[in-house]
């Protein structure tokens, strides 16, 4: 659900950058504090998995795209703040190496997906996991938060895109950047991600049930 470069106004990406920079600084601090040499490879692998999953994109008429994020695996596998940093690096790599997404849109994409969506996933998992542990509904403690986090991320992206025609127009009243309002972006972006969120939740559950079986190599 990336926003590409050239679709959002400087007013939007400058504000997002101002919000994202302290969040990135805090995330980097968490990685330095909590991650030693042995944990970095796991973070790298989960991040690479997210990168590969995001390479399979289906463009949406609303100016965005539909694809798995790999964010659920990252957030539940390594924690919110390291996942936010790793996910931001995925977005940056895609923007710089593949021209997918964009560098001006990076702070918006990172905040909407990595932080807002990731926070919902982490919080939801923290609430559900103790209640559903050792029951037959245990997978739902992964699937539901990941699904909800992805839908929240899609909602945030749709809202940011939808306000662009209000932020920047030319003298003739024509939009300078993304042209459609929330009435278009909300259904077009959010509805496909209701289904994609389920796939993402199932994928996160499949991958994460493998993780505890293995010990991080010393």
């Amino acid at each position: 659900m990336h926003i590409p470069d050239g679709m959002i106004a400087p007013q939007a990406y400058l504000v997002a950058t101002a919000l994202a920079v302290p969040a990135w600084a805090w995330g980097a601090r968490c990685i330095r504090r909590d991650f030693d040499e042995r944990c970095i490879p796991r973070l790298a692998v989960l991040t690479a998995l997210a990168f590969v999953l995001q390479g399979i994109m289906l463009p949406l008429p609303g100016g965005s795209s539909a694809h798995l994020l790999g964010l659920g695996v990252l957030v539940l596998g390594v924690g919110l703040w390291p996942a936010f940093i790793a996910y931001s690096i995925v977005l940056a790599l895609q923007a710089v190496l593949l021209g997918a997404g964009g560098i001006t849109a990076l702070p918006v994409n990172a905040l909407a997906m990595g932080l807002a969506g990731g926070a919902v996933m982490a919080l939801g998992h923290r609430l559900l996991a103790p209640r559903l542990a050792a029951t037959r509904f245990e997978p739902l403690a992964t699937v539901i938060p990941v699904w909800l986090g992805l839908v929240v991320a899609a909602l945030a992206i749709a809202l940011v895109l939808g306000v662009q025609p209000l932020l920047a127009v030319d003298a003739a009243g024509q939009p300078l950047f993304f042209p459609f309002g929330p009435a278009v972006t909300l259904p077009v972006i959010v509805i496909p991600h209701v289904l994609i969120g389920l796939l993402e939740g199932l994928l996160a559950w499949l991958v994460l049930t493998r993780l505890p079986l293995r010990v991080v190599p010393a």
Partner: protein
Amino acid sequence: MRDRLLLLAWLAAVVAATLVHAPLLLGSALGLVLVVVFAIEGRAAGGIVKRALLAVVLVNLAVSLGFIASAIYTAQPWLVFVTRLNLRVLLIAILTLAMSRHLRLEQALDFHAPSRRLAALIQSQVRVLQSVARDLSDAFASRNPVAVGWSARFRHAGHQAGALMDKTEAQATRLNEGMRSRGYFDSAQ
């Protein structure tokens, strides 16, 4: 330093492209960039332009056609917006792909050791993941000469995800240790 400057120059050019709104100026900038790219890259420039067009065509087509349809329906002009949007997005895409051929990202990030290390590991793991996924997929196809059901495919996907995790994490660990033992991260600490 060269890579960091390249990254900063590209960043400045992309931001500048979002501050220019006149289609004529955007078109001139695109023409200038194409001349420079063809002069520097030679025959490879055609590939860059093709990749840029492929990267933007579906999203731009969707937005442009949607806008044209709604503009015709409401009797509004659409040509200026569609021209501006497509020129701007194509300009940024060509700038990005031309820059990415020369950028060594881990060198550009040498001011922040953890990001540099993570970027190097992630790039290496992306290649490993793609290669292992291709191998496992080919193996699954060779074991099943006739089409198999969804449940078998689902089980295979689960095993494949697990195997991918095992293989790539082991390789990432070896790579991380190798880089550390050779002092790869020391200079930026």
